[in-house]
């Protein structure tokens, strides 16, 4: 029962339940030259259709490609030492956690000339100041998906957190850091606070809000939205986008208080057996054309400025994918809160038990 991805997965639609167990092998077995190999460990459905084959064509390096369903699963594997991976795709807070746990290689920028393509907005994230350990890849947000005909226009987290107008017709995600994070933002605090009083304030508001919620749902808010079970949900933009294509009455917004965004970065874990090939792969993915092909396949927003020229216009013009800059400025990515994580856990337990 361990190989399903719920309740820890997020924002990966169409995720196979067995993603964890699946290890796709793109390379032929028994490749002769040992140094012509690369072991990549990535989220499911998170790469372009031709990304790997064009890399092999350009460099002659064969790629062994493994998948994980959630970050904790990936991290657990590295806790006992690098099991042999060269490139991984952790998100914001996990990048910081892995830096703090001394698991990532400080990148040699001279080996990644394409790094210049990265959007300056993403060059100084709180979780890795100066991007010393990661090459930003894709990003997305956690916002409000809603049914226009039932709730009108939504511009604030108030509707979910501090309002009973749609009592019983709303749901939040079952993700403690993101839910407490946006509640902290709504209250005017940092989504990464380590101050127990602020976490308590968020907890109290959520306990009050809970009466009006249908549930804390594991990444299925978009299904509840389209089936008519709820009218307002907190969800990942990628998930809501999926159902927006099927139902015109549904839409997605990032509230004015800002939100918690996620940013994934490419990292090289310490102990990577094929370091040089890993650098080549990072450079390959930062190439404008290659990166755009990925973005056009997965429909997440790319952090690669040069790539945007080649990204489908429909995606670029979609505010649910490429949020306006001012929204981005008000938003925060999650950081590693270290010893404060048990505070979040305790608050979440109290919210669930109340």
């Amino acid at each position, binding site marked *: *029962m361990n190989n*399903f991805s*719920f*309740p*820890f997965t997020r924002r990966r639609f169409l995720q196979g*339940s067995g993603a964890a167990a699946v290890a796709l092998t793109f390379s032929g077995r028994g490749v002769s030259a040992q140094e012509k190999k690369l072991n990549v460990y990535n989220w499911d459905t998170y790469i372009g259709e031709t990304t790997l084959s064009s890399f092999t064509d350009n460099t002659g390096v064969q790629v062994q490609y493994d998948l994980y369903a*959630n970050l*904790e699963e990936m*991290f657990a594997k590295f*806790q006992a030492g690098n099991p042999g991976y060269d490139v991984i795709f952790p998100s914001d807070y996990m990048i910081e*956690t892995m830096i*703090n*746990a001394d698991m990532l290689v400080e990148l040699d920028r001279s080996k990644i000339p394409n790094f210049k393509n990265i959007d300056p907005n993403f060059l100084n994230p709180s979780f890795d100041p100066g991007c010393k350990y990661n090459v930003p890849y894709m990003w997305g947000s956690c916002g409000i998906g809603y049914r226009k005909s039932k709730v009108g226009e939504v511009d604030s987290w108030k509707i979910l957190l501090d309002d009973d107008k749609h009592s*019983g017709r709303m749901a939040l995600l*079952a*993700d*403690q*850091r993101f839910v407490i994070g946006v509640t902290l933002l709504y209250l005017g605090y940092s989504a990464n606070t380590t101050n127990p009083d602020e976490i308590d304030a968020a907890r109290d508001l959520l306990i009050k809000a*809970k*009466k009006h*919620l*249908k*549930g*804390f749902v*594991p990444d*299925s808010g978009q299904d*509840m939205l389209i*089936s*008519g*079970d709820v009218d307002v949900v907190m969800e990942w933009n990628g998930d809501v986008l999926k159902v927006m294509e099927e139902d015109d009455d549904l839409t997605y917004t990032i509230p004015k208080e800002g939100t918690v965004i996620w940013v994934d970065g490419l990292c090289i874990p310490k102990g990577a057996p094929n370091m040089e090939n890993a650098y080549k792969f990072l450079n390959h993915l930062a190439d404008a054309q290659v990166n755009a092909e990925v973005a056009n396949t997965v429909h997440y927003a790319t952090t690669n400025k040069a790539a945007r020229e080649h990204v489908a216009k429909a995606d670029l013009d979609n505010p649910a994918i490429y949020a306006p800059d001012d929204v981005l400025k008000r938003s925060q990515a999650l950081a*590693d809160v*270290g*010893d404060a*994580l*048990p505070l*979040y*856990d305790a608050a*979440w*337990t*109290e919210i*669930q*038990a*109340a």
Partner: protein
Amino acid sequence: MESWRKNKLAFSVLVLPPTAWLVIFFTVPLLIMWVYSFAERGPQGQIYLAVNFANYARAIEWIHLGIIWKSVWVAAISTAITFAVGFPLAMGIAFAPTRWKNLLLLLVILPFWTNLLIRTYAWIAVLRTRGFLNFGLEWLHDEFSAFFALIGLPDVMGEFQALELLYNQKAVVIGLVYVYLPFLVLPIYATLEKLNKSYLEASLDLGAGHWRTLFSVTMPLAMPGVVSGCLLAFILSMGTFLTPALLGGTDSEMIGNLIARQFSSSRDWPFGSALSFLLLYLTFIILWVRASMASRKRGPI
């Protein structure tokens, strides 16, 4: 026939693989968890080995005991319902004509061939506001309205109000009853099957009615199977985390969810281990009570 136990070589050849399996994949991991339960959590969720009881102290805080208590209740209620549904079912199969028996047993076991996750999602499709059950009820409602309108009583049925069946404690109980029913039916069926039917005939011949026979003869004779089946359903329901996470509402978190969270987003393996062992001790106590009850029964007559 020579007892196979006396042949030491054959005995060890047969016993060694399962024992090794049990030690390597059950005892050793359990031991590691036990060691972890006294460890400390590092800032990044590292496990620093130590000897401290802080995790256990935290595990028996009121809020966690409350969640355990709620889990016991939910498990007890679902076990009671499972028994009410499962006992007649087991009896039906045990007393069915022989040619039907295998088919009926197959039907009980059949759900196991589908993944639990998919079966639980199926319940979402059945129970939700715009689900199959509500669609069925709405259809019935419309038919009745049409009927009443026909006999000159329009509006007597009013507007159809969809039932809120999903995302609450009831949905969790329904899910648990459904999932663990076979675990209760099979042991009861096994004891009923072995039961000497002439006892029942004797009871009926001697003037007891069918109900009297059921409660005074069949049930007591089937008791070992009933206890095993109920215990199995209860213990499995206690530790569940998938069902409440998918079907439950805002207050459905059970101990299994709390533990699962410690091994994922909260990354607190030591605390998670301590909680797991608390649950394990609780299970042992239940099993011990059952064992001592069984031995008392076997005492002098």
